[in-house]
């Protein structure tokens, strides 16, 4: 016998069905709600306010965009450790590109192009040179950070000139508008994050490409035999990850008003963490954008809550770790390695 005796007479347990993946998502949604409730109880005047929600969503946007890209990479059973460094490098690159000019468009396109280029290097290393993703992107993690420091001699690049030298009231579609501008009271970066999340969901779940991505992670050999262009798919997800890192750069530099070579530090870990607690499997084959979105929110909530409670770093680190463990255990019913 090759399989366990299927309980064909019995009603399948809830976790048997594909909807089991939804259980994880429900579990994480519960965690998000719990955290919000906890925050509202602990800091009733300042936590459950519109302003604070706006704040948390904005903070979530940068890592959130990275996490969407990371979802695709992890779905193929790969990993990208370099996104944080790429964020820094792309920002500095965009900064030197504009030089003394004031064109936001040049910065935005330049940063995204450079980030995509670095992503393509990763893609080539993994898909064609057959280097293990962990190693290839670890190398880029180092290289990109070095580039970020090299390109402007370790200095940050001020971008305030892109709005006439100061901060207030940025022009629509100028760089700083992406950081501080608002449409109907909601920050532009949140729109960008949500738009990318929706687009990511559609691509992953409702296009051939998305299906192929998950197939490659689920069973590479079977995907190949079913006619999926495996190598091209693997190549594409790293390029995508780079591109989204470029978008994240734009959002971050827009808020900071400068491109700093030391920014993006360890963002990849937050992105990976969000993806994993969201329910996407590190072994590939199972991916959920909704889960990633909730995972990003979870981390944003934890950070905001702990900072507002003014917990010391030590306590913060322990608490964060415990919450992550808790979130994962809540989803255990369906996890397989």
């Amino acid at each position, binding site marked *: *016998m*090759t*399989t*366990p*005796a*299927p*309980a*064909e*007479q*019995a*009603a*399948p347990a809830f976790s*048997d*069905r*594909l*909807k089991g993946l939804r259980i994880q998502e429900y579990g994480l949604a519960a965690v998000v709600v719990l955290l919000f409730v906890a925050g509202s109880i602990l800091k009733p005047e300042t936590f459950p306010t519109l302003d604070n929600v706006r704040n948390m969503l904005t903070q979530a946007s940068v890592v959130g965009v990275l996490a969407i890209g990371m979802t695709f990479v992890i779905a193929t059973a790969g990993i990208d450790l370099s996104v944080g460094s790429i964020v820094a490098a792309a920002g500095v690159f965009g900064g030197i590109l504009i030089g003394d000019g004031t064109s936001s468009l040049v910065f935005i396109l330049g940063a995204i192009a450079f980030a995509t280029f670095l992503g393509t290097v990763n893609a080539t290393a993994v898909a064609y040179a057959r280097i293990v993703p962990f190693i290839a992107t670890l190398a880029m993690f180092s290289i990109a950070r070095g580039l970020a420091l090299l390109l402007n001699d370790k200095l940050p690049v001020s971008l305030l000139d892109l709005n006439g030298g100061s901060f207030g009231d940025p022009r629509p579609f100028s760089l700083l508008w992406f950081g501080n501008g608002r449409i109907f009271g909601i920050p532009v970066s949140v729109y960008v994050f949500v738009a990318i999340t929706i687009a990511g969901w*559609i691509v992953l*779940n*409702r*296009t*051939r490409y998305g*299906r*192929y991505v*998950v*197939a490659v992670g*689920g*069973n590479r*050999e*079977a*995907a*190949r*035999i*079913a*006619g*999926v*262009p495996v190598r091209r798919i693997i190549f594409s997800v790293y390029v995508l990850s780079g591109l989204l890192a470029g978008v994240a750069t734009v959002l971050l530099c827009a808020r900071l008003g400068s491109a700093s070579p030391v920014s993006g530090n360890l963002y990849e870990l937050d992105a990976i963490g969000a993806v994993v607690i969201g329910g996407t499997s590190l072994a590939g*084959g*199972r991916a959920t954008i909704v889960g990633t979105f909730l995972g990003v929110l979870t981390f944003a909530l934890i950070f905001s809550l702990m900072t507002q409670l003014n917990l010391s770093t030590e306590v913060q680190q322990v608490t964060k770790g415990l919450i992550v463990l808790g979130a994962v255990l809540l989803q255990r019913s369906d996890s*397989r390695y």
Partner: protein
Amino acid sequence: MKRVLEIRNLVKEFPGVKALQGVDLDVLEAEVHCLLGANGAGKSTLIKCVSGVLEPTSGEILFQGEPLPPGDPAGRLKRGIATIYQELDLVPDLSVAESVFLAHEPRRWPLLDLDKMYRESAALLARLGHESIPVRAKVGQLRPAAQQIVSIARALSGNVRLLIMDEPSAILDEGEIKTLFEVVRRLTAEGVGVIYISHRLDEIRRIGDRVTVLADGRTTGTGLPATTPTDQLVQLMVGRKVEQLYPERLVGTDRVLLEVRDARRLPAVRGVSLKVHAGEIVGLGGLVGSGRTELLRLVYGLDQPEAGEFLVEGKLLRSNRPGHAIRRGLGLAPEDRKSQALVLDWSETKNVTIADLNRFSRVLLDVRNERATAHEQLRSLNTVPDDPDRVVRLLSGGNQQKVVLARWLLHQCRVLLLDEPTRGVDIATKAEIYRIISDLAKSGLGVLVVSSELEELVGICTRILVMRDGEIVAELDGKDATEHELLRHAVAPSDAPELAEEVV
């Protein structure tokens, strides 16, 4: 003759399911007792109760006259009960000796006594007649048949009195099966009792002493002699008469769908030419290692040929990518469906549609249409359950194979390449699959099927090509061929002619 194992009214319930509803079985010393049953009948549950992996809900198990305490699978080996699972539970990176003694290594405290390990494992292998297996070699480098011997040696290392073998012949070819039977006979000569599970009725006749049949968690017949006629056994298994295992033989047309000209890829394929016509089922027989699977891989584009041409419906197949082959109308059901054909965590729907997503998407996937179409396809093949959302991992082997076939039906391919399509599939589902293949060929497809079950090839094929050492050495008409003849061609002439005598 003493009874080494007695099972009385064994019941095992899971939440919502009664897997075993009162099973009786007894195994004598030195006998080979075969266990027969369709998938889902409860064979593996029964075995797991005996080997301690599961605890029975009620009933008795007596081992050598003493009640067997439930649970404790690790301790079973010491008691003398050993189980060889179909998916051998060996660690590829360990050496043979380490595997044989895993979890009960000889020690010269506090270190392992390596010398003793090597010596004793070599001795055990010799007892099985396989002293040629090097004890230091890594298990992962051995052929499946040799790995199986290592598993058996491991069983011996615990001084086994009862050996349970779960479909051991599934991964073996004819020659290896004969060797296995010799090993089993050696063991029974030492008084070991053997429970032998298999789907292959001819094996039961060859090696078994008695047979027990399970159906729906109950014993429908026990202690029957191994010579019980097939019909009777099948009826006990399925509860009804299976009209005919094999469908009516097809004749085939003149239209050539697939042509292979002098395909070559050393060392496995050394110049093979063949034709498959619409409406026919062409079998590829031969021993393991004769190059049949490699040939299919060449046709389908998984491997690059060193020479040769492949034509589908008269047009040359140029590139070596599966995507291209699929577009031109080829479909492949690979040998190991779990690791090569299916994404186990996916639903039935997704596994069915993966090769033909174009059909459901212009820009976006029409998920509803996809699900409905797949559902229809699954239903037409009588897949159980035909639930389009069911995760494929949970299906039985036979139904998993139907999902794979549904994939190619959906795609309306022209030529089906099947590699061991009924491996690990129970009798009733096998019959269904034969019928599906036959219907497909009747509707105009060409089918090329690789199989190690000679009976199967003789049963369904229009023509049978026999491969040996990378070449086609014989072509037999399906009508007239016998297993004996097939085997004769498959085996090199210098090899023992008595090998051919073994076949019933």
